[in-house]
């Protein structure tokens, strides 16, 4: 009957709340207890190095172009051997929304997202991180990848010198 259902529906919840009163809270008391985020967690970005220990970033500006909040800026420069790098690389974590589009846009796998999430600070200026703060001395999730061994013609290896590269074709030989 409807009335019986209503009465039951009124009193059953009391039993539920009473039962929950004695269950353990699911709260993680943050500063004392910290949860380990999963390895692919998307928190602050890092700048990785290639297997030779060189900076992977080639200052192509793709990340700052992809960034929806425009928090990345850099100055491109070139070494004597033709290798491009960022003279300075700056990210404003006060603006960053941790969307990971920069890491997706990065052609050299330099930018990767790390699970380090404790960035809060009382001084917003301390949230502007420079290249020195971001650079790490490992290759991140793909340690063997070396951009200049696949592209960057004739910079670190002579033309056709890379493993997956054919020697350059002499176009004159194709002439009839």
């Amino acid at each position, binding site marked *: 009957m409807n009335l019986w259902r209503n009465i039951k529906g*009124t009193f059953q*919840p*009391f039993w*539920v*709340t*009473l039962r*929950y*009163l*004695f*269950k*353990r*809270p*699911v*709260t993680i*008391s943050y500063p004392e207890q910290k949860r380990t985020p999963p390895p692919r967690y998307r928190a602050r970005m890092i700048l990785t190095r290639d297997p030779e220990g060189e900076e992977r970033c080639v200052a192509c500006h793709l990340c700052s172009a992809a960034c929806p909040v425009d928090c990345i800026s850099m100055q491109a420069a070139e070494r004597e051997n033709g290798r491009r790098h960022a003279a300075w690389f700056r990210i404003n974590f006060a603006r960053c929304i941790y969307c990971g589009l920069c890491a997706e846009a990065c052609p050299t796998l330099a930018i990767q997202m790390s699970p380090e999430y404790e960035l809060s600070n009382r001084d917003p200026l301390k949230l502007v991180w420079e290249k020195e703060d971001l650079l790490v001395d490992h290759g991140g999730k793909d340690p063997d990848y070396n951009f200049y061994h696949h592209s960057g013609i004739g910079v670190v290896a002579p033309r056709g010198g890379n493993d997956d590269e054919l020697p350059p074709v002499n176009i004159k030989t194709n002439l009839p």
Partner: protein
Amino acid sequence: MTDLLLTGLLILIKLGMVLAVLLTMAAYLVLAERKILARMQRRYGPNRVGFGGMMQPLADLIKLLTKEDFLPAQADKWLFLLAPGLAAVTALLAFAVVPFGPPLELFGRQIPMVVCDLNVGILYFFGLSSLAVYGVALGGWASGSKYSLLGALRAMGQMLSYELAMGLSIIPVILMARSFSLTEIVEAQASLPFALTNPLAFGIFFIAALAESKRTPFDLPEAENELVAGFHTEYSGMRFGLFFVGEYINMVVLGAIVTSLFLGGWHGPLLPPIVWFFGKVLAVAFTFIWIRGTMPRLRYDQLMAFGWKALVPLALVNLLATGGILLWLGGAS
């Protein structure tokens, strides 16, 4: 002359003690409510200030006292300033007639453990509980805000729908105890509390008391999802604090009234009477919190319909039945 002075002094001491105990209880009831509600939702609740959050009421008090006392430009100044006091004072005054223990024998004098044993104690409580609505209604009206006005309107409508049922549910108690004085009503329950002899009246009174304390499921006047904060939307600082603490004092007082009217007051085996009294009051308060943790808010018309179509007829039938049974049991005395 010295006798009169001594009586006056005793009343003052009792007043001070009751005030201190009542305010402390109200403050810690806020904390208890937040903690119990949190545990019902599998959270911890406030646990940072002091040991396990025990200093939270003090922190809240300091925060409220140091906040700006804001007066809206559209407000009716004097009513706006007075209303929170009215809400808190009526709640405090109502406790005066509640007996919290058996008379104490001290230096050959009988000291009744009640601030003032009025022979029309119940009517006094009723008068004050009706006055308390003025604090809400005037505060909401004087704010000059639509949300406040709607909250005040709802408070008035709510009062109209529960008060009659509340009054009608007390009459059987008065019939059974043959007195309007709360002390004598408690005395009449020495063997059996009225909650057992007349459970229907107890249920109706309890629901009406819930509505009186403006708590879920009857927290329509402050319904935060639709009216921001209802009648106290425009209040800030300690004026909001007075409304807030008034609500919790009201909860303690209603707990005490329910205890005295239906749960046998300070009567109980083994433990000292004062422990029984406070234990019962706290049990009622816990039930209030439990209900808040469980029930959703009723709609405005649902409360009206429930009050007028269910509670009032039930209370009337109960009144007739109780009167009939008493007549049949005791004859026409």
